[in-house]
């Protein structure tokens, strides 16, 4: 096992011994950590890491350690709900809710056709749910409108792989991180979004000095602070920087001509598109100094092995797919793919978003079958025993287009499975207006911001209460055994899907039920058969084998019974027209290619190199909105906090939203640490406290996207643009424009007030009060009648989580000598004010 050292993280709250440990997998981020669930009296009472699991060797992320707590929440939904005439959600029986649901679907199919119904699922469900969605959606309903919140997090992973290699599936794996001489983390902050993976990298680095770590990010994140070379680029300039790096590789001759000739097509496109990207131009556009660009290019050009990871900094930025394709280009130009320690490792954001792509719950047909290839469609029709003429043809239609279809009244029924789009979608006010026009069915364990627009709510089982498999970020299929029964009245997503299919009366061409499996394991057996012979072959997987092996990386078949650590070791890429998962899209416009156009590329087993044109983000700061806005995650919360907000420990670590701003901007705007300000974009505004921090670029502000309550007005997606990448259709959350407005009031001083006494009434220091009132020393309150104070203040102290530093909680980020938090100001009070009495 490549990762040698074990550490079993454990978090159990139980009086006396537990009854049993149940084999499972973490359901939070995409690393896919093995774990065991502690059960006592049919209740989950804790979790521990699986020391034998290769992904984590027993370690758990802080959210993972607490992920069982929400199961016990007193506000779990226990009954279906139907929106009544009063506009309120009313308790209903399962029969009432499902009959209404099915009746409405039938009505919409009659009036609007299959394009009137959409299923929008998640990256946190089970592979078996997704496969069933694929079957119900395509063979049952005949709809194209299958999408998931994976569109928001990892659609770009899929599309950059489809473009370059002909099929989905990350070429490299975590094992390669243990072998690579150089690792480039591009827009990827695993110190906060995948702590176990970061720990793995850092453990090796501390012991051996390897890998040489290049980090690319506009924020000096905790990950960036561990880098040997940190490239802090301007927002929206990923492609510019990569073009500059490739330009230098070509200029230096640091490419592998034999590999390029034998295994790629399109080299001339790359040469031409990067020709003008001199270090000077690259630096001018990206803001990265020329010497750093040269240093990175030197390292990338000479290193014998390289793994490049990407995540939301790449996927949620302008020209996301182009940037990730540029990374694929770089690996192909150097021949650093398909061998130990080499390859792109485009991450996924959720624990099983990859599974959704593999089995066709989103994107293409199950088993990487091309929905525009009649042969592939006929193949799946044969396996499902349905008429191919009834299966939809053509690429999927993503959520951003589904919103438009709802606005136009064409999409009339939206089935939302275990996700919270009213917090996670960009420009969410527009999304809400669209949802309100449709009939919305929501499956969730809790009432959420999305159930506010639901017509039916179905209470769903949570992690630990259901069985199934998930696929992590490096193609590993992991098993989750059911640990406890869900609360009475609650059903798993799988059970709800089967119930729906049964009530709809879906049949195959012989009149037998379209879905004949009754359990997740039977479903997996069918899927394994459907996958046989495809690029995502799982025919060699059984539940039993998964548990024995602690997960297996596909393809797993007769040829690779123990799975496949890395793809393309034979340097054959599935790029012939009959093999390819799609015919791809035009790299610049995003227009779907025809079969003839794809064939004309002449790839036929070779990887495809593309021109990588740089275009700046569409929305940019201007006079009215002079700041860049970026959004992202915190280590302490998962997505829209449906679960983590219900864990007191996690909630207390990061209880509210905030806006991070550079000290120079804070000084220019005369902002105080913790002062509640209004952040305004062309689409809306929020009110959050200020966190002044040097790690962010001047001119850029950061707002975590977790805090989405309609009532508290802290939702980042009130502000974000609903623009998408032209290929992957992933929203550009990382680049919007905004301004910051102070929220202050003028108050009268009381008789006898000093500056200090007045300041203390509002939670301020005298110095702060003097600063925002532009007073000059010596400060004399008796010359003033009124002062200006912030309307509201709040401490923003987010403890970092850094187990590899052997200090789980520091008082706050210790990244600046300046007093930038309210805590600093208070601590430094004696020093700054001086005086013998103090």
């Amino acid at each position: 096992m490549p990762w040698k050292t074990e550490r079993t993280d454990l978090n159990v709250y139980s009086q006396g011994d537990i009854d049993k440990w149940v084999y499972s997998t973490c359901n939070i981020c995409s690393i896919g950590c093995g774990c065991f669930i502690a059960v006592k009296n049919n209740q989950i009472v804790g979790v521990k890491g699986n020391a034998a699991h290769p992904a984590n060797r027993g370690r758990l992320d802080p959210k993972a350690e607490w992920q069982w707590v929400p199961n016990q929440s007193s506000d779990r939904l226990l009954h279906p709900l139907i929106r009544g005439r009063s506009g309120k959600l009313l308790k209903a029986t399962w029969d009432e809710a499902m009959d209404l649901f099915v009746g409405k679907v039938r009505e919409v199919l009659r009036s609007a056709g299959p394009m009137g119904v959409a299923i929008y699922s998640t990256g946190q469900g089970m592979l078996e749910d997704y496969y069933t969605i694929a079957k119900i959606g395509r063979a049952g309903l005949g709809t194209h409108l299958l999408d998931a919140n994976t569109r928001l997090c990892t659609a770009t992973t899929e599309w950059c792989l489809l473009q370059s290699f002909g099929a989905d599936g990350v070429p490299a794996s975590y094992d390669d991180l243990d072998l690579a001489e150089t690792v480039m983390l591009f827009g990827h902050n695993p110190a906060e979004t995948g702590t176990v993976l970061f720990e793995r990298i850092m453990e090796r680095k501390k012991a051996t000095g390897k890998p040489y770590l290049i980090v690319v990010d506009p924020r000096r994140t905790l990950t960036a602070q561990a880098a040997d070379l940190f490239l802090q680029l301007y927002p929206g300039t990923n492609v510019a920087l990569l073009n500059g790096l490739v330009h230098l590789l070509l200029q230096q001759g640091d490419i592998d001509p034999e590999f390029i000739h034998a295994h790629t097509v399109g080299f001339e496109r790359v040469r031409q598109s990067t020709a003008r990207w001199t270090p000077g131009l690259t630096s001018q556009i990206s803001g990265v100094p020329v010497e750093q660009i040269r240093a990175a290019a030197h390292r990338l050009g000479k290193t014998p092995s390289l793994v490049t990871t990407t995540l939301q900094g790449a996927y949620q930025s302008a020209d996301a797919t182009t940037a990730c394709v540029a990374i694929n280009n770089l690996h192909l130009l150097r021949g650093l793919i398909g061998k130990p320690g080499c390859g792109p490792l485009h991450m996924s954001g959720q624990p099983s978003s990859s599974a959704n792509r593999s089995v066709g719950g989103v994107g293409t047909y199950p088993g990487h079958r091309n929905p525009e290839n009649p042969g592939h469609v006929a193949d799946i029709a044969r396996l499902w025993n349905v008429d191919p003429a009834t299966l939809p043809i053509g690429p999927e239609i993503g959520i951003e287009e589904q919103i438009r279809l709802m606005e136009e009244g064409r999409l009339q029924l939206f089935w939302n499975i275990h996700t919270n789009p009213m917090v996670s979608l960009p420009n969410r006010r527009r999304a809400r207006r669209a949802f309100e026009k449709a009939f919305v069915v929501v499956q969730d364990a809790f009432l959420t911001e999305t159930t506010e627009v639901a017509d039916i709510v179905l209470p769903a089982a949570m992690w630990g209460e259901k069985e199934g498999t998930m696929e992590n970020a490096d193609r590993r299929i992991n098993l989750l055994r059911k640990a406890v029964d869900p609360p009475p009245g609650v059903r798993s997503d799988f059970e709800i899907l089967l119930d729906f299919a049964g009530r709809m009366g879906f049949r195959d061409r012989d009149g037998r039920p379209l879905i004949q499996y009754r359990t997740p394991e039977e479903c997996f057996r069918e899927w394994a058969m459907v996958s046989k012979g495809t690029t995502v072959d799982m025919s060699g997987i059984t539940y039993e084998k998964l548990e024995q092996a602690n997960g297996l990386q596909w393809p797993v078949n007769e040829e690779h019974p123990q799975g496949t650590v890395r793809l393309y070791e034979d340097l054959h890429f599935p790029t012939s027209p009959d093999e390819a998962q799609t015919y791809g899209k035009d790299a610049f416009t995003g227009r779907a290619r025809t079969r003839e156009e794809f064939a004309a590329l002449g790839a036929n087993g070779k990887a495809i190199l593309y021109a990588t044109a740089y275009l700046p983000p569409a929305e940019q700061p201007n006079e009215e909105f002079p700041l860049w806005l970026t959004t992202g995650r915190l280590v302490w919360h998962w997505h829209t906090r449906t679960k983590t907000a219900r864990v007191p420990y996690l909630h207390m670590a990061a209880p509210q939203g905030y806006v991070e701003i550079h000290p120079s901007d804070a000084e220019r705007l005369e902002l105080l640490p913790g002062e509640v300000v209004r952040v305004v974009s062309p689409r809306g505004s929020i009110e959050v406290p200020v966190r002044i921090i040097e790690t962010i670029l001047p001119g850029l502000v950061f707002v975590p996207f977790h805090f989405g309550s309609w009532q508290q007005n802290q939702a980042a997606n009130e502000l974000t643009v609903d623009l998408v990448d032209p290929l992957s259709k992933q929203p550009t959350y990382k680049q919007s424009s905004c301004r910051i407005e102070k929220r202050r009031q003028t108050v009268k001083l009381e008789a006898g007030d000093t500056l200090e006494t007045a300041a203390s009434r509002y939670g301020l220091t005298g110095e702060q009060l003097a600063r925002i009132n532009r007073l000059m020393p010596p400060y004399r309150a008796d010359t003033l009648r009124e002062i200006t104070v912030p309307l509201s203040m709040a401490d923003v102290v987010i403890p970092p989580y850094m187990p590899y530093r052997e200090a789980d909680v520091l008082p706050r980020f210790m990244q600046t000598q300046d007093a930038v938090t309210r805590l600093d100001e208070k601590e430094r009070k004696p020093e700054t004010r001086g005086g013998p009495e103090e």
Partner: protein
Amino acid sequence: MAVPMESLRDGLAAVYHWTDFILRQPPRNYNPQEIRYRTLLEEQRKTAARALVLLRRSPLPSNDLREALSVMFRDDETADPVFRSWVRVSLWMKSAEPDDLQNLQTVMERIRGQLEELVPAIVQLYGDEETRLIVPAIYRQQERPPEEQNQAFGGDGNALENGTNGS
């Protein structure tokens, strides 16, 4: 065959005309959305012109026309959301006049309408199955659910009559 050819010709001519109408106007703000949708419309215009030429040939070069139609529909399918996002961002950034954007939007909708009107002729020319490969689903509103094609739905004919019966 005459009827579909005639309606195809008229429809393609209209697509060409309205696409050309937009492209003859100067770009408003050269932002990435505008650059992209205009690139797509340029291809659409070129392809519509090519298709019109192909329609005049005898015998009809069926494969070439099929390819041209496929490209043209895909151009519009891609350009339409890009255009709409350009409208949004232009309004947010106040980089184009709202009335002007509205006028362009009307023309874009007209192009889409023309393409939808082409579909019956394409079906006549290529048949249902082939048409599904040429024309993206979003333009095929007449498509029926599997149940109406006697597929994938149970023999329980009553199910369709039940309709909404929830509480």
